[in-house]
């Protein structure tokens, strides 16, 4: 029983990270109907940015309070990752609106390859690992009972808080209204005076900001970054977005949690070697049998 609860906690932690990345995929797909293949690599870059800033703050500037350092890292990381994704959208995707259907996807694959290799050139290919940022744990029940590290509590709490903020942004502000309008009908939204290009840019920035949060949480959880760390989490987050129903924000979070739980349970009870296979299989099975996902609307084909 303890093992089960332990795995559940692990799964929720992992799922929070996937959910945060998945929102970036699902929002972009919702508005312009493209799979932003480079989003996983943006997440990878954000984890580098987070680790670099953390080291600068603690080693060079000598900030001793971990909480303060993490807060500054979080804000700086969200800003800079947002800038990167804005630039990516501006260069690689915006000129392709109105091109043929596969063009943005191919461009996104090109961008993904470019980002990974850029990071390899400027940061080097080896694994960068650091001592745990957040230590200590909470013991529930008697000694030898359930042990929950503080970092996992932190991850789930930060995710929950940011999702609430984000939910407010999308549901209650004029900006969110513009985004939802573009999602429903981009042409009509433009006719009604919404600056579509600006809305799309902001969507990319928001997606990247959440990916940056995920990047920091990833560093806190695993304590290491690598240039190849974008691909598999990226695909899993995309799986989460598809599983929840692409275009649906609650779906992305739900899908992320489900993928995290499935991965933790599969790794804990079935076979740790094949946990990635499980995630990829879920992706294939969902797309084949229920492309609209759990909470998504079925896509209607217009001639």
């Amino acid at each position, binding site marked *: 029983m303890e093992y089960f609860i332990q795995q559940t906690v692990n799964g929720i932690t992992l799922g929070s990270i996937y959910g945060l990345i998945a929102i970036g995929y699902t929002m972009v797909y919702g508005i312009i109907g493209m799979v932003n293949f480079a989003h996983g690599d943006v997440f990878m870059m954000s984890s580098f940015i987070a680790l670099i800033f953390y*080291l600068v703050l603690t080693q060079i500037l000598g900030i001793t309070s971990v909480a303060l350092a993490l807060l500054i890292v979080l804000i700086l990381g969200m800003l800079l990752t947002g*800038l990167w994704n804005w630039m990516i959208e501006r260069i690689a995707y915006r000129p392709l609106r*109105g091109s043929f259907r*596969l063009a943005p996807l191919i461009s996104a694959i090109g961008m993904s390859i470019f980002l990974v290799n850029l990071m390899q050139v*400027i940061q080097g290919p080896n694994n960068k690992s650091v001592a745990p940022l957040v230590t200590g744990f909470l013991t529930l029940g008697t000694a030898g009972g359930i042990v929950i590290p503080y970092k996992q509590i932190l991850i789930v709490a930060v995710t929950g808080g940011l999702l609430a903020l984000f939910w407010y942004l999308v549901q209650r502000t004029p900006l969110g209204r513009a985004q939802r309008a573009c999602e429903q009908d981009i042409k009509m939204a433009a006719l009604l005076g919404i600056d579509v290009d600006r809305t799309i840019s902001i969507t990319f920035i928001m997606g990247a900001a959440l990916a940056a949060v995920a990047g920091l949480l990833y560093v806190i959880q695993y304590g290491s970054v690598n240039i190849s760390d974008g691909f598999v989490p990226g695909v899993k987050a995309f799986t989460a977005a598809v599983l929840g129903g692409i275009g649906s924000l609650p779906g992305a979070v739900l899908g992320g949690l489900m993928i995290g739980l499935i991965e933790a349970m599969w790794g804990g009870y079935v076979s740790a070697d094949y946990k*990635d296979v499980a995630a990829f299989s879920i*992706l294939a099975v969902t797309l084949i049998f229920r492309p609209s996902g759990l909470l998504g609307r079925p896509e209607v084909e217009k001639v």
Partner: protein
Amino acid sequence: MTEPSAQAANAPSLTGTSAYNHSEPITFIRQLRYAGVAMLLAFGLSMPLLALKLSQDISNHLIVEQRFLLLASAMLIAFACGLRWRLFGLRSQWPAEALYLVLSALLLFFLIRAFHGLGSLFEATLDKGGSEFLIALGLLACGTALQSALAYALHVERDRWAAALPAMPEGLAARFGGHCAKHANTGALVALVAFPFLMLALTGTAGAIKWVDNFGVQILIYIMLGWGLNIVVGLAGLLDLGYVAFYAVGAYAYALIATQVIPATFPALGVWAFWICLPIAGLLAALWGVILGFPVLRLKGDYLAIVTLAFGEIIRLVLVNWTEVTKGDTGIQTPRITFFGLPFASATGDRTFGEVFGLSGSPTIYRSIFLYFVILALALLTAYTTNRLRRLPVGRAWEALREDEIACRSLGIDTTSTKLTAFAIGAGFGGFAGAFFAARQGFINPKSFEFIESATILALVVLGGMGSLLGVALSAFAVIGGTELLRELDWLKSIFGPTFDPAQYRMLIFGAAMIAMMIWKPRGLISEREPSIFLKERKAVSGTLVKEGHG
């Protein structure tokens, strides 16, 4: 809705058209403003990632290495480029131009100083990777400076050029082009067949092994893979991101049958292993093409791409983890190719190729040349089949499907079997290439079948022009051959340092080229479509007239 803006972006920038409001006149101040914004952007983008590098100190602690010189150069370059932002229109103000040239010169001066280690300041801040990158940036600066000079020269000389060009006899160019096209295939074939012997004559045995094996065979493998994927992506318009899975199926089919099945059943056939396994590998890969293709038929575009990616990764992960059969990352030693049963080198004292034909010397060169001809034959088979298939109903159905799936269905084309045949045939050629790869390497493990390989093959198809055999071959030749060539150039190492590996820059350039291609020339280098059926005379269909890719 977005059509006009896309067209504006695609229009040649020589006329000064851009997404910006170009009614405002370009003044020096405005150019400075652009440059300032570009510099700030460069600062924001490169601040943590470029200027600060994560590295380990002696006691293996992670520390941050400061490379502010790099940051400064990046900002300087962004500033210089920002000055030139509108310069394609040749309407720059001369102060901006002069400032740009001064900046380029300054940058170059710094770089050269940094390189020769004259300033200890630079030595302290630069490491190897940093200096490589700096040189690349310096070359960029030189390039833009050159371009600036060229643009200026052209600007002055433009009228004279414009007067001279139409004066060229029109018929001459056309006739020359037609003459070349008629004999191009024969010429190319002769050159390809003569290549290994030419190399043997020119560079001797040791040199020829390098040229034939590293260049010839390597390029031809990628050409074959590109042509195989071209059937799926270029003709049928199905974006397949997991093509390397079929390559892996072919390679492992050969490795497992040749090392497990044949010795256990008919050990006498051991020397024939490659020739027995080649068709089996192709068939198995085609079968996997159908198995993986069948469930994804309902999916379109992006979803199809992602599911094929997932399948490709699943197959690779199974190869890694199913250690009882595949030996995982340890890999499998595979038997080498034989000359139709005659081994090139024998440890057991069997008669070898050299002994039978009375050829002395290293067996490696004979094997390399033989491998070259085998892969050449396989590649030509792929090209021949593709060209024939395009003229058959199924080939026409592929191209129709690529252009408009709904119209296809309305006209009664069976989209299921059409897509499946594309998947199966493309996969089959991937399987042939895989079996050949395993026989050539003598060793395989799952590392050769990672996603990046799929992306490379896809990039070849996209860059060359989806659907064009010649385009794919040219891009494979340029890209794969270019990298191998870069690796050979020793003087590059003397500039960029001994650790310089062009392979990592190759992928960097690849990614950028894919984006650039989609923006400026979405149909690839060779975008002319030769019609497969015609009445009385062939009429070339320009790529711009054909809509593409609703698959």
